């Protein structure tokens, strides 16, 4: 077995709101091996982005443990985290608002190198910046351009170059292609895949787009209202989704074929309920067609391994 780069145990993050305690992330556990990709899927408000940010300690967890590269970083202070930032990076969703509009491409990509004092001397830094631009497929002539002069795809390439600048081991990609057109989306996905192969990167890939996650991930975790409801190797989850929510989510993807046989669509009723002050019952119960109120309302189901590597949190799924 390959080395586990990141391990998260029982991670929780609650926010205090005027209405009560908001359960953004509620007892999430997983491991990611070096060089692999874990995809975290779910709809708005399921806590996938909060999970990503908490792993990097951009948000302090309420409880739980984060073990990165053998070190328990849960209690690390900002000062202690600083050197670690070179090993764990993030790519953000919106390439339009995550770049300083007053910096040139050169300044943007050089910033993390200078900030972490990785390379000294102006010439060496410039050389490294140009190398990074080539790695992510940005033409050299753009070196003095400003972000507003570039399209979304190129801006996202700058975001990737900034993350790569410090030679990280882990990159959390939070919806990296959601804001892009399909043809550009494919270019960026190919780039991320190639970088993983060449540099041995480990990714946590957060997205709501199941097609993208299927294409990209080794393992997939499905989140619903702050919890992981199903986790399995990518192919297994698509071949045999076990949780009723995963099934509904998969069947809701519009499939771009016409005249070929399609699976009967499972529509789920209602919408995601409020994550504030949750009762001790299955969180998907009120939208679930397979629910048995006696069992499902009795307590919150925990994540159980029903098949090798295939975990599900549902009272109705038996081993």
């Amino acid at each position: 077995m390959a080395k586990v780069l990141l391990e998260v145990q029982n991670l929780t993050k609650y926010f205090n709101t005027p209405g009560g305690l908001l359960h953004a992330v509620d007892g999430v556990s997983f491991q990611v091996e070096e060089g692999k990709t874990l995809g975290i899927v779910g709809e708005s408000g399921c806590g996938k982005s909060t999970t990503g940010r908490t792993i990097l300690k951009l948000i302090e967890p309420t409880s739980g443990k984060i073990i990165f590269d053998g070190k328990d970083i849960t209690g690390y202070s900002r000062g202690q985290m600083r050197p670690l930032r070179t090993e764990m990076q993030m790519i953000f969703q919106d390439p339009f608002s995550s770049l300083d509009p007053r910096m040139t491409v050169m300044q943007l990509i050089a910033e993390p190198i200078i900030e972490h004092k990785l390379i000294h001397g102006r010439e060496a830094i410039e050389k490294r910046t140009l190398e990074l631009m080539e790695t992510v497929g940005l033409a050299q002539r753009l070196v003095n351009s400003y972000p507003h002069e570039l399209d979304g795809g190129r801006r996202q390439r700058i975001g990737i170059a900034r993350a790569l600048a410090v030679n990280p081991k882990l990159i959390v990609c939070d919806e990296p292609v959601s804001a892009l057109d399909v043809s550009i989306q494919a270019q960026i996905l190919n780039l991320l895949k190639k970088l993983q192969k060449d540099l041995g990167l480990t990714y946590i890939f957060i997205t709501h787009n199941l097609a993208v996650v299927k294409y990209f991930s080794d393992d997939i975790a499905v989140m619903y209202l702050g919890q992981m409801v199903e986790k399995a190797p990518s192919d297994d989850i698509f071949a045999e989704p076990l949780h009723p929510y995963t099934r509904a989510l998969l069947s809701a993807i519009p499939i771009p074929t016409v005249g070929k046989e399609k699976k009967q669509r499972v529509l789920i009723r209602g919408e995601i309920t409020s994550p504030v002050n949750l009762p001790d019952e299955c969180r998907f119960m009120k939208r679930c067609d397979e629910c048995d109120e006696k069992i499902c309302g009795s307590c919150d189901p925990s994540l159980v391994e029903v098949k090798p590597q295939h975990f599900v949190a549902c009272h109705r799924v038996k081993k």
Partner: protein
Amino acid sequence: MSDNILEVKDLVVRYETEDGCVNAVNGLSFTVGKQKILGLVGETGAGKTTTALSILNLIPSPPGKIVSGSITLNDKDVLSLSQEELQKMRGTDAAMIFQDPMTALNPVMTVGEQIAQAFKLHQKITQQESIEKAKEMLKLVGIDESRVYDYPHQFSGGMKQRVIIAIALACSPKLLLADEPTTALDVTIQAQVLELIKELIRDRGMSMVLITHDLGVVAEVCDEVAVMYAGRIVEIGSAWEIFNETKHPYTEGLFNSLPNLKKRGEELKPIQGLTPDPTNLPAGCAFSPRCPYATEACSKTVPELRHMDGTHYTACTAYDSPDFKLGGKD
């Protein structure tokens, strides 16, 4: 009476800006049959939204200008109607659903009042009656009528989009223009809203132009499909023809960019390069600089739509040679 609810012919729309003249729509022709759903597909900047706004004569002018062409909606010549006639037409002949449900509603007005406005504008009706009708519309789109006095911020995104559908359908338009109606929604909510739109269109015998960049949504909903690139239609035909007998290199490129048709680990085949700058379109076929099949002839003339078979048309110079075939989707 014509069999078509909508006929657009040789439409040209430009925006005069400080940075130059934006050629948004460059000679567009298509028709929408009664009770048919046409999907208008393309990427950012292809001119999809401009086309929809032109149909309602809503192009902001200045800077926008409909330079030439004709639009016939329900046997009316849209471009020669007076302001008053246009106002009558909008809402009763055609109505539009916008992409972003978060900004399309007035935040300081109850949703009931916003739906009632549509009735009050088009029908002689009292306040009380209009609110009653608003309640009926809410029920129709699956929202409890008790929420008629709630404000938009009390609704989720999917619910807001349902309210917008209720407003659009209030005066029973013959044609619905839906501009990316589900793009801002989560997939499970998208599935619910698409199902609702399909059902309402069918039950009321309406037609629809659905604008989207999502080929999956098109496959689920549309009868006919027009693929747009740089303000022109490059391929048009029945949904079956477009998806199974793809003829245009750009359409093929779009399909090959989709990760859901691929196995994991296989490399995607994206279209090379970027969409052209609409202030400075390439000569000849606008797609030729990105096209893997392009020859010298492609940059000389702008290809016209040519008949392939059935209802299938494509605009590609390569078909001058009778043996030309695409590499195929994989």
